C-alpha cells in the first residue's frame, strides 16, 4: 500500500486536497481535517494559506542552539520550541508581538524571589518623563524629588 499523503501543516494524514492555478502554475496543498477547518478550506481564503506555504523559504535561516527549533518550524506550528527560542527568534517575534499583543514588554508579576526589574524600569521611564515636564514647567521642587527617585531606581537596576 502506498503511504498516505501527509498534511502540509502537520504530520497527520491529509484528507483535503486543493489545487490553485496562477499564471499557469499549479500549486497543490494537502491538509488534514483539522488544519483544513482551521484554514477555512471551505472558503476561497484557504488559498491565502497556499500562498503562505509556497512563499515560505525552503531552508531555515535561524535555528535555536538550545533545542534545534527553526524559523520554518515556527511558521508551521505557530508555537516555539523552548524558552530559549524567545531569544533566538527575538527579531522575528518582536513584530509579531506588536501585532498580536500591541505591546512588546512585560510589566506584570515576577517569579517569587526575582526582583521586579520590568516594573522598576517602567517606573524609571515614567519618572524621567515627569522630571522633564517638571523642569519645563519650572516646578523645581517636584523635579528635585523626581531626580532623587530616578537616581534611586537607576541604582536598583544597575547590575550588582
Amino acid at each position, binding site marked *: 500500500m502506498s503511504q498516505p499523503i501527509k498534511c502540509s501543516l502537520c504530520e497527520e494524514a491529509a484528507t483535503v486536497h486543493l489545487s490553485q492555478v496562477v499564471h499557469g502554475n499549479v500549486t497543490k496543498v494537502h491538509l488534514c481535517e483539522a488544519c483544513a477547518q482551521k484554514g477555512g478550506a471551505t472558503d476561497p481564503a484557504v488559498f491565502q494559506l497556499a500562498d503562505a506555504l509556497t512563499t515560505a523559504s525552503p531552508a531555515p535561516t535561524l535555528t535555536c542552539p538550545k533545542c534545534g527549533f527553526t524559523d520554518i518550524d515556527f511558521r508551521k506550528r505557530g508555537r516555539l520550541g*523552548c524558552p530559549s527560542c524567545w531569544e533566538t527568534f527575538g527579531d522575528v517575534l518582536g513584530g509579531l508581538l506588536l501585532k498580536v499583543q500591541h505591546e512588546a514588554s*512585560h510589566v506584570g508579576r515576577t517569579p*517569587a524571589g526575582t526582583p521586579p526589574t520590568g516594573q522598576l524600569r517602567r517606573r524609571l521611564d515614567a519618572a524621567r518623563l515627569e522630571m522633564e515636564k517638571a523642569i519645563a514647567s519650572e516646578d523645581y521642587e517636584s523635579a528635585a524629588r523626581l531626580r532623587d527617585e530616578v537616581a534611586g531606581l537607576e541604582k536598583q537596576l544597575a547590575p550588582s
Partner: protein
Amino acid sequence: MSSVEDILAAENELTHLLGAQQAVVLSTRIRLARNLDGLPFPGWAKVPQRKEISDRCVEALDALPNFRRGHVLRMGELGDRDRAVLVERHLVSKELAAGKSGAAVISRDQTCSVMVNEEDHLRIQVVKAGWHLRGTWHIAEQLDDALGGSLKLAFSDRLGYLTACPTNVGTGLRASAMVHLPGLCLAGHMDKVSRALNQDGLAVRGWLGEGTEAAGNVFQISNQQTLGLSEDAILKHLGGWIKNVVEQEWNARRRLAQEEGEKFTDRLARSLGVLRSARLLTSSEAMNMLSHLRLACDMGCLPEERRHLVDRLMIEGQPAHVQARAGQELDSDGRDRRRATVVREALKDFPEVVPPTA
C-alpha cells in the same frame, strides 16, 4: 473507585449549593501559563523529556497544601469516557485529553486544577462559582508563588513568563467569566455585544471554550492581551466589562419581561413542561431549555434556591457525564433517553413557573 468517579461523586461549588450561585455569572476562572526553565515546550519535547517535565511538575504540585487529598490523573492511564468527563467539567482541555503524556493535578474541592504538558508545561487554573474575580485571582497568585518557590520557571525581564505561544507570553494570564445571557440572545443583541467586546480586546467563546458554539446561551468572556499590561490592569479591564455586560443582560431581561408579558412566562413554563415530561432529550435541547429554567430562577419565576440544581443539570447533562452516571457506553438514542430520565427525576418536585418579580 477511580479518581474520575470520585470527582463525579464529590460535591463541589459548581454543581452543588456550596458556593453562592449567582444570576448571570456562572463562574469565574483564572488561568496562568507557566514553563520550566531549560526544557523544551511540550509540543517540541521528546517523549523522555515530556516524562521528565511531568514528573517534576507533578512532584512539585503534589507537595502543595492546595492539592492535599486531591487527584493526580495521567491522561495515558484514563479511558476515553473519563477524559471526556474531565473536559466537560472544564478541569482539562480537549488538547490535554487528546494526548498521552499530559497529566492533571486537581484539588479535592475541584477549585484548583493544573494541567501538565498541555501547550505549556503548566497551566494553573482556579475556578469559583459566581463572580469572584479578586478572590479567584488571589488563589491563583498564591499557587503561582508556591510553585515558583519549588520550580525554576522560564522568565525574562523583558518578556515576562515565556510560553510556547506568543499569544500567552508576559503574564500568561487568561481571566474569564462564564456568563449566561439569555436576555441578550433573545433580544438579538448578542452579536453587537460580542463585537464590542472583541473590539476592546476581549474574546467571546461558547460553553466549552475555543471553537464551540454557545449552547444554552452560555458564553465565556476572557482577556486576549497578556503582554504589556499588569495582572491588575487585565483584571480591571475584564471586571469593568463583565459588570457592563451583566447590567445590559438585566436590562434586556426586564425589557423582554415587560414587553412580552405573558408570552415571557409562557416560554419559561413550556421549557419546564418539556423537561419534566420528555422521554428523549438531546444535549443541545436540554441546554437551551435549562437556560430558560435558570432565567426563571433569576427572575423570580422559580424559587432562586433551585438555581444550583439547574447549574448541575447543565454540567451533568453533557454526553460523557450521562454515560458515566449510567456506568456504561450508550449510543446517541440511549444517551438522550438517559438524559431525559435524569432531568425528569431532578425536576419532579419543581414548583410551577409564575410571572416574573425581578
